[in-house]
């Protein structure tokens, strides 16, 4: 995980958020070769961000739902805490001035 933020991997991940895709389709949409796409997918898979399954003769990749759940949990917790603090601040000002 030394090359965090590689733009191609970023693009692959974002496409997989839209819907599951096979390697060939990703390679067709991006300016990189199929082996390069496979290599990026391996990194994403090792990082626990995507999972794959066999459909007939093809391998289809999708975002790991757990990774997306973790991402959302992170920001849910952040905004839960911050909006509560915001409410307290707004109500304190309202009582003082209003």
């Amino acid at each position: 995980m030394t090359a965090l933020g590689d733009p191609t991997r970023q693009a692959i991940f974002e496409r997989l958020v839209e819907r599951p895709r096979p390697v060939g389709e990703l390679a067709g949409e991006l300016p990189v070769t199929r082996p390069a796409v496979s290599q990026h997918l391996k990194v994403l898979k090792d990082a626990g961000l995507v999972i794959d399954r066999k459909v007939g003769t093809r391998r289809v990749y999708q975002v790991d739902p757990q990774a997306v759940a973790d991402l959302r949990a992170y920001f849910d917790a952040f905004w839960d805490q911050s909006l509560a603090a915001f409410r307290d601040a707004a109500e304190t000002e309202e009582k003082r001035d209003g």
Partner: protein
Amino acid sequence: MVDQQEQSGVAVRQSIVVDAPPDRAFTVFTQRMQSWWPMESHRIGGKPITDLVTEPRAGGRWYERAEDGSECDWGRVVAWEPPARVVLTWEISHDWRPAPEIRTEIEVRFTPEGDGRTRVDLEHRGLEAFGEHTAQMRGIFGSDGGWGGLLKRFAAAAGGAG
């Protein structure tokens, strides 16, 4: 599956009702952010900050100002419609550093609820831009440097603030 990932990719949505009218809520949210933002833990420039500034216009900057006067951008103002709505970009990495390559978006709507109250709906969307950083974020989320603040909030609520 619900519509959660259709229009805006990966998003979180939260709402809260505040006992203050929309103009007040809008002002506190956008112009007095330092009164509620967890600035000790959530800042990006590496120095203690004194202000969070949102320039009051579309296209304006959104930035933190440190004690020594230096400024560090958090993103941009996309929409500025007081007292109803504001949209900001959030160009901050999972480990709280400036990251223009990770561009997510926050939309906040302020709706009158009657009796001088306001419902505040917040959406933070485009989170898929974090891509592989998600893996790093999971580590942060699970660590004790994460969201201990939640417990404080519950403690405050239990103490009768609500």
